[in-house]
Structure formats: C-alpha cells, structure tokens
C-alpha cells in the first residue's frame, strides 16, 4: 500500500509543479514544459495503477503509449506555433499577445 501511495503522491507533486509552471511563465516554450511535466505526472500515476492494482490489464500500458504520443505531438505542434509567432511578432512572450481578446 505504501508503494502505491508513495508513487501517487510523487505524481501529485509533479503535477502541482507543472501546473505552477504552466500558469506562471511568460514564455510559450516554458508553458509547454509545464504541460509536459503534468503529462509525465499523469503517466506516473497510470503506471502505478497498472503495477499495483491491475498488472494483467495491458490496456493501461496502451493508455500510457497514447499519452506519450500526445506529449510528442503537442511538443511538435507547439513548436511550430512558436516558430510562426516568432516570425510574425519577433518574440514568443505571452504577456503582450492579446489578439484574441473578444
């Protein structure tokens, strides 16, 4: 039981750090790093569940694979957006970018 709880708490803390980073950083790339941390924490959670509660259910590992895929993809698309933004406005700071204000 301790094993499971330890792993889950580690994941919770990582998630919190990631959330803090995603909310507090001005730079787009830093925000992405925060999101990646959050996803990593989620994956730790999943693997802990798999290992300690259902080692026979490999669909959980499938889920982890999908989450990894999503991480990689989100990195790719995010960087593409950052590139384009850098080209058009010269910086990727999120502080000044209020174009979507409605």
């Amino acid at each position: 039981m301790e094993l499971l709880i330890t792993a889950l708490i580690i994941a919770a803390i990582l998630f919190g750090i990631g959330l803090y980073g995603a909310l507090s950083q001005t730079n787009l790339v830093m925000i992405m790093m925060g999101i990646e941390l959050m996803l990593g924490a989620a994956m730790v959670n999943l693997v802990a569940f798999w290992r300690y509660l259902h080692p026979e259910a490999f669909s959980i590992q499938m889920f982890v694979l999908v989450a990894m895929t999503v991480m990689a993809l989100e990195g790719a698309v995010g960087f593409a957006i950052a590139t384009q933004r850098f080209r058009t406005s010269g910086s990727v700071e999120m502080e000044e970018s209020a174009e979507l204000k409605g």
Partner: protein
Amino acid sequence: MISIQLILLIIFGLVAIWFGWRVFMTSSMVRSALSLLGSMVAIGALFLVMEAEFLGVLQIMMMGTEMSIMAVFMMMYMMDPGGLGNMDMSHQKNLSIAAGVAVTVLITGAVLFADWGTIVTQVPSPHEQNRLLGMEILKRSMMIFETAGVTILTGMIASIAVALSIKSSREK
C-alpha cells in the same frame, strides 16, 4: 515494510521533483531544458522501478530526443538564453502558486483517503510483458493504435503547415 522498491521509488521520485522544481527556478534557458530532461529521465527510472520495462526505456529514449530539440528551440526564441540578465520572467505568481498547491493538496487527499483495494505483488516478467503488450496492441487496442498513428501523421502535417513561412513560398 521498507522494500528496495520503496527506497528506489522515493529516491527517483525526489530526483524528479527536484529537477522539476529547477526547471522553473532557474533563469538560464538551457538549464531549464536540461532540468526537464533530468526530470523526464527520472520519471523513466520510476517506470523501470515499477517494473514496466518497456515503458521506462521508451520514456527515456523519447524524452532524450525531445529535450535536446527543445533546448535548440529555447536558444532560438529566448531573449536571454544564458540567463545572465537575471530578470524575473513570471506573472500572476500568487495565483499560480495557489493553484499548484491547491491541486497537489487535493490530489494527495484523494490518494490518502480512497480505498484502493488489494495490492498485487506478482507482475509478469519483462519478456512476458512485451509479448502481452504486443498482443494487446494488435488485438483489442488495434483501433487505438491506428488512430494514434493517424494522429501522429496529422500532427506532423499540421506542424509543418503552421511553420511554413509566407516569404519562403514566394521565393519559390
């Protein structure tokens, strides 16, 4: 019951948390990227400790590549990659700290007070795990796998499309 697994879990967990913290606490961009790499590798090690060998190895390999690319992008886009200017690049700090702490506390509470049932101690061997994971992918989760593949393709196309420059297309 202190087992070797618990010790390793705690060690690698602390390493991951420390590196994660360092990502946002340092002002040098390259160091942020490398810290994130360290954190991800530690998470991979956690997977290995929890006997999900395939996932662990996959995580380490992928994250290695991804973080190096991220480091390159950092250097391209940051105003101060070396972090020598010592500017505080953050906003709504209070809100973020509050949000992070609140979420952590909530989740920990949920973890501690939930009834998890019995813990299973027997895990299939790594060889067996790979085989079973493969069977899982190719039988029940085939659709998911295919969808993931298509999603990757879409992501590739989308990122290339977004990153195309108007000027470069005119030059052609």
